[in-house]
Structures are given as C-alpha cells and as structure tokens.
C-alpha cells in the first residue's frame, strides 16, 4: 500500500463493512490575512457504519466543527471526498446536492439562536417538510406531532409559542425534532450539550440515544467533553489541530488511550469524587498552536511530554494498536500491533 505523502493515512478505514459515511482526505481551509491560509482540517479520513455513533472530540480550534460542517457541505471542503451511502456528496452540483439534503441534518450548539425567533415552534419543525413538499397538510401535521411528542415537547404549546418562551433544554429538544422530521440517515450533532447544565445535558443525551433507536439514525457527535462523548459514542476520533490522532472503539480509547493527547484530555476531566487527588502536573500546558502555521511533523509535539526529535520532523501515520483502534503517534502509550490481514478487521468472535 502506498503511503500518502501528507496526512496520517487511511489504514483505519473499513471499506469492507459498507459504511454509511466515508470521509477521505478531507481538507478545510479558510483564507486568512496576508494571503495566509488557516488549515482547519488537514487530510482527515474516517468512516461511519450504519447505526453507529462517532464521537469527534478535541479542544476548541481542533477542527471538529469544521469537519461536521464539511460533511454536510456547508461550506464544501477545500479538497477530499465525502461519500454518503453510494453518493459522493463532494462531486455533486448545487441542485443535485440539494436533493440529498433530507438525508443529512444538523443540530447546533446554541439551541436558542439556531431556531427562528419569529416563528412558532410547530412551524419551525414543519418547515423542512413544507420545503420538500413531503405529504399533505394532514400528514405533515401528524408527522410533526409525532416528532414533537417523541422529544417530549408539548404539541399544543408548540403551536402557539415561539422559541424564546422555551428553556435552552427545551429548545434543544425542538432542534432534535426538526432534525428527525425528514427521516434523515445521518445527523451531525455539533456540541449539542455544551451550553446546557448537567441535568439537562443528561436528559438530552438520553433523548438522542432514544431517537437513534427509534428513527434508526447514524450520528456524528462533536464535543469537547470526553465523558459525554464516551457515553454516547460507539467509536471515538480524537482530533488535534485538524488531524485525527487516535480513533477506535469508545471503550478502548478510554480504558487504553494510545495517544498522549488523549491521555491529557482524559486527565483534564474533573472527577466527581473528592478522594481523587487533582494532580495539576497531569494537566496539559499551553494553548493550541495557530492553525495558520501548524507545527511540522506531529502537530502535538509542542505540548507533548513524550516528544523527541523525530516528532518535530516526521508526521506519524495511523497504525493499529488494537481491534479497530488506531493511533498516529511515534511514541504511543501502547505498542502497535502487527495486523496479519490487509484491510479491515474481520468480525470473527474470540480469536
């Protein structure tokens, strides 16, 4: 297999398992001043099987939201491909892409500003159906009622009231209802619980899980809180400065982190247990470097305690460290394994 010159490789993709979403070599760049370029996402690859939840996790500025937006082509990525089912979204023209829109939906971080303040809530949830001329008035009414009911928003209240009359948690429920109303296959959740209290957060996480079962959804869940991501995800991709540094099954990432950055993120989570000593020496120092001029080699080397000379020169490639668990690091916390097979891991139980 030819190792690509840039990026961390694609060895972690699972083409043999018929993914719903495949993202390959995704790059998102924004123009900055003085003809410089902000590379928000660089050569990112991952895939998502039907019914799976992928957690994208990292600090602000790591490109996780840009990735989510590039998947729904808002705006389209600078380069790379996004394939949903058999449709390559990145190859479509504006009109063709529009036809695919009902298959993808998004839930945003700020529940209040993502809802039209001048419409009543029932109309907000109905709008996608009207745009797509799905069903007659009666069917639409039934569908909206069903969705509002599913997310636990009072339907009669929704007909009369506008978003500002609802709490943040309620607004997030309304966003979820709006997202599921067109029966999408994939929903991108961009930090859907970051603005919420712990109690409301728990309600929304449970609700998303319920919606996923009920409507057969596949989710991309973007968040910076690892504990939240672990709770909801089957698979987790840890991002740093526009790249994936580790990807794998949720359980493996958390019980056995391979990348020093993942470990640092884990150490930063406050533990609700006073007998656990807070050890500030475990906490990551410094800020994220500028994405205008990212560090050469491994982008994490400027903050990494394990960094050596090679880290500043050579970009690490994705290498397997366990079943479906890959890391891009020269000095991973667990040693890479040799895979006998070529691509994809077979699903034979007990080996």
């Amino acid at each position: 297999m030819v190792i690509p010159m840039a990026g961390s490789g694609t060895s972690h993709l699972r083409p043999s398992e018929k993914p719903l979403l495949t993202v390959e070599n995704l790059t998102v760049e924004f123009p900055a001043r003085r003809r410089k370029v902000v590379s928000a996402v660089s050569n990112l690859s991952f895939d998502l099987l039907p019914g799976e939840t992928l957690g994208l996790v990292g600090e602000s500025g790591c490109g996780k939201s840009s990735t989510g937006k590039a998947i729904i082509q808002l705006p389209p990525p600078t380069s790379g491909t996004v394939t949903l089912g058999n449709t390559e979204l990145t190859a479509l023209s504006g009109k063709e892409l529009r036809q695919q829109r009902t298959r993808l939906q998004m839930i945003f971080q700020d529940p209040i500003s993502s809802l039209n303040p001048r419409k009543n809530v029932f109309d907000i949830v109905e709008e996608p159906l009207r745009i797509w001329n799905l069903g007659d008035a009666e069917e639409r009414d039934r569908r909206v009622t069903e969705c509002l009911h599913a997310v636990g928003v009072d339907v009669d209240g929704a007909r009369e009231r506008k978003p500002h009359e609802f709490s943040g948690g309620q607004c997030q429920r309304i966003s979820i209802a709006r997202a599921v109303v067109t029966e999408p296959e994939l929903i991108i959740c961009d930090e859907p619980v970051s603005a919420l209290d712990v109690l409301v957060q728990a309600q929304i996480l449970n609700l998303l899980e319920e919606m996923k079962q009920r409507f057969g959804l596949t989710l991309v869940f973007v968040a910076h809180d690892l504990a939240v991501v672990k709770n909801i995800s089957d698979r987790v991709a840890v991002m740093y400065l526009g790249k994936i540094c580790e990807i794998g099954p949720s359980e493996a990432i958390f019980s056995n982190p391979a990348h020093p950055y993942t470990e640092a993120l884990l150490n930063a989570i406050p533990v609700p247990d006073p007998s656990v000593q807070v050890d500030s020496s475990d906490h990551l120092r410094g800020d994220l470097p500028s994405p205008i001029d990212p560090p050469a080699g491994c982008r994490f080397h400027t903050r990494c305690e394990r960094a050596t000379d090679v880290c500043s020169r050579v970009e690490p490639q994705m290498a397997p460290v366990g079943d479906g668990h890959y890391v891009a690091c020269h000095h991973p916390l667990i040693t890479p394994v040799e895979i006998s097979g070529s691509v994809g891991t077979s699903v034979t139980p007990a080996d």
Partner: protein
Amino acid sequence: MTSEETPVGTLPGTGALLDVRDLSTKFDSPRGAVRAVSNVSLSLERGQTLGIVGESGSGKSVLSRTIMGLLPRSTASVTGEIIFEGEDISGFSDDQYRQFWGTEMAMIFQDPMTALNPVMKIGKQITESLRRHMGMDRTTAHDTAVELLRSVRIPEPAKRFDVYPHQLSGGMRQRVVIAVALACGPRLLLADEPTTALDVTIQAQILDLLEDQQRERYMAMILVTHDLGVVAGRAHKIAVMYAGRIVESAPTRKLFADMKMPYTEALMSAIPRLDAPPHTKLSAIRGRPPQLVNPGPGCAFAPRCPYARDLCSEERPVLRPVEDDPDHLFACHYPVDSAESIEIKDHLRAEQMVAEAAGGGDSDGW
C-alpha cells in the same frame, strides 16, 4: 496525602472571614416578587474554598452577586446580614462598595469576553485598579501588572500588556480576568462559573491556577458552578442550592460520601462517568427548577423528586443537621438513605431492569 478535613477554627487568624446570615434577595416583576435567594446562611474561613452548586435558575449567581453588592438597588431588595471581617457590608453605600471591591472582595465572571473592556488594552485594565486603589504611579503599576500577568501564566507578559482582549484566546482572556481580580490582593474571590465557557483542558488549567493563587495569597474563594465534578477536588465545603435556598451543605468529603438530599444525588448521577460503559443510560430527573414567584408551601424540589410523598408538597422541610454532625445540613423529609426513599429506589431500579430487558437486544455495540 492530604490531611483530613481541618476542623473549623484551627487556622491561624481565625474567625470566619465571611458570615452570611439569613440572606434573601427579591426582585420586583410584573407577576410579583421573584424570590431569587431565600434565607441563605453560610460562613467561610480565611483561605478556604466554598463551592456553591446548582443548575441554572437555582439562585447561585444572584447569591454571589448579592454578597458582592452588585445588584441594582432599584429592583433588588436584600434582607439579612453579610458580615465580612466582622462588619456588616449589606448596608454599604456605592462609595463604600467602590473602596471595597478589588481590595477586599473581587469577582470573576463566566464569560471572559464580556467581562473585559473590548476597547482597552489588557494592561490598562489591570493598572486601572492598581493606580486607583493602591495609589501606584504609572511605572510601578506597569511593572506590577506585568508581574501579575506572569503569575497567571500568560506567556511573554511584557508583550501581552499591550494587546486587546480579542487578540487572546478564551483561556488567556480568563487569565487576564483573574489577573484583574487579583491585582489589589482581595481576601475573598468570587468565581461565578469561571470555566463553563472553556474547554476541559483549559478548565483544568484555570482551576489549577486559581488554586495556586489562592494558596499563595491565603485567599478565600467561593466557586459557583453547576458541575459537582469541578468542586469535588477543589472545595473544602459545598453548598447545594435549589430554588434560591441551600438544600444541603457539608464539608466536601462528607457530602460525597453521604448525600442526604435527593437533588444532590440527582446532580451527581447526571454526570456521565468515564468508568461506565458507552451507552449507559444517565439518570436524568425530569423538569426544570420552579418559578420563584409565589412558591407553594411544600419542598420546591418535590415535583421533580423521585422520592416525594404527600408531606413533601404540603410542608417545606427545614434545613437541619445530620444527627451527631452539625457540619452537615440538609433540607428533606425523606433523605436519600431513609427507609421510604430506599423502598422507592429499589422499586425504580426493578422497573428499569424490566424496561431494559424488554428493550435490549436491538443494539449490541456497533
């Protein structure tokens, strides 16, 4: 490693630094008086940290602003005593408060962008209070400010002195806010959700920084948050607020080891745990905090409480100490470990197991 809870009153220079007695804050509204804070009493020793925990609308921010004297007098009416260093400050005039802020008590807010003046260089925002309160001349104030920026671990402090807030990241801005608050060496720092707007990694850095500064300066701190995880490793004492009242308070370890109030339990069990497997259903209580206009006669938490019985909606439980432990107070008719609550808990658990057995099997990981 750490010594067990230091018995209250053994620290040097003792006597409580802050003693809040029966404090209530009401706001006028067209619908009637909003009782944002009701009959709160608490005390804080020098050098110690008190965590105030509750969800949005529980009154924790109004309480900290009341203590700080930041509420508009035209709409807020405050009763009760706020005794700081033996002096009741609740009746202070604006002028008295102006002398007091910064030097005795300072506050840091949730959103570092709006807390800083966007059109003033950050250095100036620090020297402003140094020159006013400490009477420093321009150069001394400049040098002190650079030192402060260094102490809050801002890299290249001399250079950063001349930047505007928008040129800094959220975490850096919050450091500047902390530097401003610490400038005149306050004895009490009120931190109102200081890390809620920040990433986990930056949150950890900021909390570490606050803890270091607190230790160095022997400063007391009130840490207001909705996340029990944030205060668990940091606060000596925790007060849980609901609907404007303290519903449970205890030294941190005691609170976590022996929660009495169902609301505290709910806050605790809503936190996603790293040691739980993926897709663990979180125990989320329904509903939201109640309206604070014309509260009913019963416990404000009763409508959301899994253990509530008839008595709970009829009679408001008083804040009372746990038997043999005057430090641990709670307000509940049927605390978490009472026979009545355990009975309901067992019942709920059985129901959940039935539900899981019925709903299970449709997803197995992938």
